[in-house]
């Protein structure tokens, strides 16, 4: 099983969720994060002092999937999260050794 972690622009969230359900993904977990990258932050003045907002708001989407679903999930995300502008974000894929559904105790692929 794979854990697919996507860091995306927050306002894309609803579209991504819809795109994921089209490929059969029914569960995901999101976290508000802040990102630092090639996309430049902006400089503000507060009471005459400059400050740089260089951590930009991003949304992290985590989806646990069966190995064979990984590619379609990545594609489903990429397709809609891509605005072509710097800062669109990244997808990280890692392996999961085990998954448990707490309610039922089901394991691994059954638990996803």
């Amino acid at each position, binding site marked *: 099983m794979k854990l697919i972690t996507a860091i995306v622009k927050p306002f894309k969230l609803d579209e991504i969720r819809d795109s994921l359900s089209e490929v059969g993904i029914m569960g995901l977990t999101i976290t508000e994060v802040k990102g630092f990258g090639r996309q430049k932050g902006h400089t*503000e*003045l*507060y*009471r*005459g*002092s*400059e*400050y740089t907002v260089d951590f930009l708001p991003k949304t992290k989407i985590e989806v646990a999937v069966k190995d064979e679903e990984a590619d379609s999930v990545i594609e489903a995300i990429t397709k809609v999260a891509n605005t072509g502008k710097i800062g669109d974000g990244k997808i990280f894929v890692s392996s999961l050794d085990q998954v448990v559904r707490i309610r039922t105790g089901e394991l691994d692929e059954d638990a996803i």
Partner: protein
Amino acid sequence: MSELEFALNTFYLLMSGALVMWMAAGFTMLEAGLVRRKNASTIVTKNFGLFSIACVMYLVCGFYIMYPGDSAISSLIPGFGSTLGLGMGSQDMSYGSYSEASDFFFQVVFVATAMSIVSGAVAERMKLMPFFFFAIVLTGFIYPVQGYWKWGGGFLDALGYADFAGSGVVHLCGAAAALAAVLILGPRTGKYAEDGSSLAIPGSNIPIAGLGALILWLGWFGFNGGSQLAVNTASDAIAVGQVFLNTNASAAGGVLGAMAAARLVTGKVDVTMAINGAIAGLVSITAAPDTPTGGLATLIGAIGGVIVFFSVTYLDKKFKIDDPVGAISAHGVVGIWGIVAVCLSTDVALSSQVIGALTIFVWTFIVSGLVLYALDKAVGIRASEADEIAGLDQAEIGVESYADAE
């Protein structure tokens, strides 16, 4: 004066005093909004405490010192005594212009205002107990003495120094004490980079900071409007009306002046500058709210608004004076402008005004400085760096300002 006139004046002073009391909420909200979340509970605590201390100390001795009447020792040295016993039994029931108690009430909220100015400037780094100790001294002694010099009939009054509602006696006094405190305290940790450049420390709640300024705006009608001290005759009523009109016009001018300055210099309209502009407009007109026309009052306020914008920027960048809410600029620098601006609509001599401003500043700055310096040597007035980083709320109050348990 008829009994009814006495009654109307008393009622008017009480309503005015209630409006000024309300300024305590204004300072509390303004300051709570402009500090970080980790220090907002402390700001609330400080404002409750300082207001209460001011009320008690002014009753204990402040009022007597400021208005010693015949028991004054000289035009420089007031008399000393207490008004703790102020009660109906003790009041002269053969009435004067207004009741003694209404007079006390109107005056006591002024001294609280002066102390409130300090609280904003020292925010986020001054320890609670030394702050309260200083509040005792300022409200029980430092403020009343200079108040005596002008309003109690002391030498500044004799000199012709004009200060209708206290651009100097209240606002410059508070700001001078604030400046002394800030210089001794030093800036907040992280306020200046190693290369000396000024770093922004954004406030945590702009809507309540805005609310605070609007509360002050409202309260100021009592502050200036009540300072006519009578509304029973046509000429008094007309004067009070003009004071309201001008106070409002000057505040409006201050907002527009500060906004325009911000927009032209930085390209954006920093809302905290608009807020400071309102206060600056109000402070500007406070020394003579009765004499200018509405148009001139607007202009005086607008200049105050422009001044506060540049003052905030320069005190910070050039002088590394770290004043989280801009109190020293809005009440001090603009307070001086207000004192001087009296000459625009009256024939008061500029020299009297300069002497007045200097006297108030020097007295308050030096005595406050000495007290705070001694306090600092004795117990330390600045919170430890660890407490400052964790936030004073944790260190001294134990209550988070915006807990979001569950």
